[in-house]
């Protein structure tokens, strides 16, 4: 997991797997950032080959923490596996999802 600032947007890049091993750390990191400021966050899944239900749970917890604190969250570059999972769990209606990172970064309403 690594974090990059691009103007007013924060990009968080997840590793190869977003599973129960790393989901708690991901969630805590985003929550902490969300509480500090109204964050514009892009979760860049480009490197993530595998995401499970706890990964989905961490993304849901993250977007809730952001919205509560006046922030916003977008998802960029999900794998085919992640897309399938978001659609099955109907999270594609909760997340705004982009196949292109720049589009995700430029999509915030400010």
């Amino acid at each position: 997991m690594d974090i990059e600032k691009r103007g007013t947007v924060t990009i968080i890049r997840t590793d190869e797997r977003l599973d129960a091993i790393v989901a708690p750390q991901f969630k805590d990191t985003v929550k902490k950032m969300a509480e500090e400021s109204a964050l514009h966050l892009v979760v860049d899944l480009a490197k993530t080959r595998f995401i499970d239900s706890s990964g989905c749970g961490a993304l849901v917890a993250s977007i809730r923490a952001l919205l509560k604190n006046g922030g916003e969250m977008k998802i960029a570059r999900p794998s085919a596996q992640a897309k399938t999972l978001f659609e099955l769990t109907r999270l594609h209606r909760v997340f705004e999802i982009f196949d292109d990172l720049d589009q995700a970064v430029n999509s915030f309403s400010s």
Partner: protein
Amino acid sequence: MDDELAVKIEVPAELKLLRPLNLFVRGLMEQAPALAASEKLLDDMELVFNEAFMNVHDHAYRFGAKGRLSVEIILRQDRLEFRFEDEGESFDPNLIPPPDPDETGERGRGVWLMRQFMDQFIYRSDTNGKNLLRLIKNLPVPGR
């Protein structure tokens, strides 16, 4: 692969086993033509395996030390089966509601996802304290 390939793994249901087991299962599945031919099928089955393991970890052994888990993988040309046997808390999968599509809860998607991806989800809790979850997927047989 003409015959049945059966492997059995006994581990403590600890988090640090999750990824090594996933690597093993993925590697094993890649040996089966019907699975190797479909990245999506491999992904789906890896997810199911992962969810089943995590449920034993999170729920069957939710109190205290993580107990033993026995995992069997039975691979035939036309069928893949995972068997998860634990000695922890049991549950009734028929009482688990499907996730509310308008709820953005953090949990409660695992059992439902397994059911979506598998052809059979069979859970049995024995009087001897053992719980067995059988997850069965029918595989497409090429050229039939």
